[in-house]
């Protein structure tokens, strides 16, 4: 699991993660995916916030922005508006995306920007050494919750579907092939796609029981474009947080190809307005004092 990938996307900087970190699986799956998509390092942009997961772009030699805590989506949207020709992938964590950056997540999903978000969800703050995050279960003991977390976890899957993301999937870092499959599907999707990767922290919260509890939605024949069944499976994410014996769904939870994509709307507006003004002089002409009655 801790193998550092060796491929043309790595910039040779030793990753700053713990040697046993589950994130290496995701790093490996992501770079393999980029390769399979035939993307040169200068044909993809990775954007991250701050935290363990957000260090990821710093290990690559693609376009990379390591931004502020919680703010990868605003920067990614700006990058996307500037360069609609290359894919923008956000690597983030549960604290980054769902706590400090929650407002940006809600609106980026709602506007359905063509951005792929990979959330490395270890359901805690690892870089600051073990505090409860929005996705930690009730009773989670971190350094700032010595008597257990007092509040219920946020269900990222339900949130994403209800906000208007057009593709929501889940995977688990214990299964690299599946992570790769989910990232691949997300990159192929036009619109906002979230890959929620269960990626336990080896240092603070190993969640060793997870592999036995996973079940694959696609194997089960889940109807991905049906909102009701998507929300039903999404709800099981919450149940699995509370009930240690409950199954944990992975796979594509929700996917629609008929939702308005912001990028397409921008393209339409630009197309419709092309040639409306050929230069600023046209605008200044409009702004001249009305003189046609001055004769």
């Amino acid at each position, binding site marked *: 699991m801790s193998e550092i990938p060796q491929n043309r996307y790595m910039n040779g900087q030793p990753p700053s993660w713990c040697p046993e970190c589950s994130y290496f699986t995701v790093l490996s799956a992501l770079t393999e995916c980029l390769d399979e998509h035939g993307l040169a390092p200068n044909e993809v942009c990775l954007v991250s916030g*701050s935290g363990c997961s957000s260090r990821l772009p710093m290990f690559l030699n693609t376009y990379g922005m390591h*931004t502020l805590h919680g703010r990868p989506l605003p920067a990614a949207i700006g990058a996307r508006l500037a360069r609609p020709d290359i894919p923008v992938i956000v690597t983030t964590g549960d604290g980054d995306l769902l706590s400090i950056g929650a407002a940006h997540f809600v609106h980026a999903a709602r506007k359905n920007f063509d951005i792929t978000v990979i959330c490395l969800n270890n359901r805690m703050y690892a870089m600051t050494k073990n505090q409860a995050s929005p996705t930690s279960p009730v009773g989670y003991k971190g350094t700032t919750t010595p008597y257990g977390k007092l509040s219920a976890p946020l269900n990222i899957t339900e949130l994403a579907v209800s906000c208007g993301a057009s593709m929501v999937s889940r995977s688990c870092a214990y299964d690299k092939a599946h992570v790769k499959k989910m990232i691949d599907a997300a990159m192929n999707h036009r619109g906002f796609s979230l890959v929620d990767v269960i990626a336990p922290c080896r240092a603070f919260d190993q969640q060793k029981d997870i592999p036995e509890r996973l079940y694959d939605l696609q194997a089960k024949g889940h109807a991905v474009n049906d909102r009701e069944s998507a929300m039903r499976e999404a709800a099981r994410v919450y149940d699995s947080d509370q009930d240690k014996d409950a199954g944990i769904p992975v796979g594509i939870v929700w996917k629609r190809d008929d939702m308005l994509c912001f990028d397409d709307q921008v393209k339409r507006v630009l197309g419709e307005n092309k040639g409306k003004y050929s230069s600023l002089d046209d605008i200044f002409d409009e702004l001249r004092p009305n003189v046609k009655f001055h004769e």
Partner: protein
Amino acid sequence: MDAANNNDPPFTLRVLLVGEAGDGVLNAGDTFMRAAAAMGFHSSVHNCFPPTIRGGMCSVLVTVSDDDSAAPISPSADFVFALGRASLVVLGGADSASSVDRVNDAINRGTDINGAINTADGTQTFKLDFDLCPHIHNYPQLKSGFVLGVLSTILGIPDAIVLGLITEKLKAKNLTEQNAEAFKFGLDSAASNILPAIRAVNKYALRLASACPSSNERVVLDGNRAVALGAISAGCRVYASYPITPATSIGAYMAKYLPAFGGFAYQTEDEISAIGAVAGAWFFDTPAMTATSGPGLSLMQEFLGYCSMTETPAVVVDVQRAGPSIGMPTKHSQDDLMAAIFGGHGEGQRIVLSASTVDECFHLTIEAFDMARRFRCPVILLTDSALGNLQTTCKRPNADVDVNGHTVTGAALPAAAPGATVRRITGLEHDPKGIPSNTANNRVRQQYKRFSKMDKIEAYYNYMQTLDIGDLKPPMPKSRFAAKMQNDGPPADICVISWGFSAAMTRIAVSALRKRGLKIACLYPRLLFPFINGHYLELLNFCKRIAVVESNYTGQLASLIRTNTGINTISVKKYSGEPFTPEEIEAELAGIIDMEKFIEDIDNSNGDGAAKK
């Protein structure tokens, strides 16, 4: 202009329109201003909100003049129209405060006015008989048409001009006919009830300006639109913002114009997201801008630090309003200077500019992009509520640029971490290749590199500061930076420094004081940070008495000057939410000169003044 009567003093006419929301005050002001502009006059509309009018929600001051030296704001108005419950017009008010009192008085007494109320101070008050027009009852916004009719009768504006504007303006709103009808009722009503009773009708008549410059040379612009057009001219292709008074209209203009130029204006969920998108676009060297006001600037501070650290350009326009907190969102203030320069965590290099006129809003926005490219750091352009909303005729800015080009392109300094093909940036301290590094040596080298590149700003942008010494003798070159008064020339009575909208008003005040024979040296800085000492020290060559005129409580520029140069200045401050009028500045400066001379005389008579010199 008005070549026919060169000896006449400049003709200036001011009309204050007051009313409740929905009375069409803004519409009437805008149309009147455009009518005067179409006749060849310089004209402007200033949105002002005098708190003393009972029930008055909004008001505009229209200034019409035959040269561009008339201030767009003033304590006096020739006409005051009250469109709310009062339905009055007051003519010939010596100052609008007394007119406002009169309107308040009339409201208190009821509005049973027949004919004119003539008062000893020369004002005349008439009732506006809106009931004459049957539609106004249902559509109070038609009062604007009626008022325009009254104005046209009294001032002699050709009907066709106003009717043309009404038709053009309201064609989308489906009330064109009714408005034209209201206009005619206004015309007739004024002709029979007001015009015959006016004592000094000739004083007001607007002559068609005989030498109006050809229409191609002039445009009607407001500060916010000038910013938007400047940005487009500079190559801005991504605009991101969150609505906030008084900066919102920049977003509206960008949304309207930018797509035609291949760019997009994006409304974000908050200001953090707006500056984030700007940083993201500049990451790919796509020029991007956001505009906001004080509270938004606070939210942007973290990303401004990020841009400083990663040497990512960013252009931020702060249309200042009176803070802190929500404060007075529609009110003028210049209280974000310190926030723009220092607001944020850590120490990051940035550039702060300030515009004082609508024309400068256009040109300094272009400069802001140029500087952002050249220095790869955030550039904050300060304007303010009065300037942003000031709509005025002005010289057509030079827009000699095609859809793909820029008027100004500075050669960019190298980015933080340019790879051969890709770029990777991080808000962590990093080495010159962009790789995170915590070492002491690297930190010292990088921090020095980021700040020392700003040293070049003085060489490039010296022209940003305007030193106006009138007919004073320029100082000898060798003594340029000497903090000592020169003996070779008469000293100035006072030196004046002002920035932003206050600087525009100060110019007018200084010109009046110079006409009174006073010697004044002025500095109008537009590049406020990095702080360039030389320009301020230069003033000491003329006089040690230096006044700083600015609209804030703490004297923010005065503090900066003291911190950087050790010069103690005299602060002329106003923080009421209304901008300085030239008259106020004139009185303040004259008062300072008198007081200082008085003290000097005492010193001299005590015998120790001479020793000091």
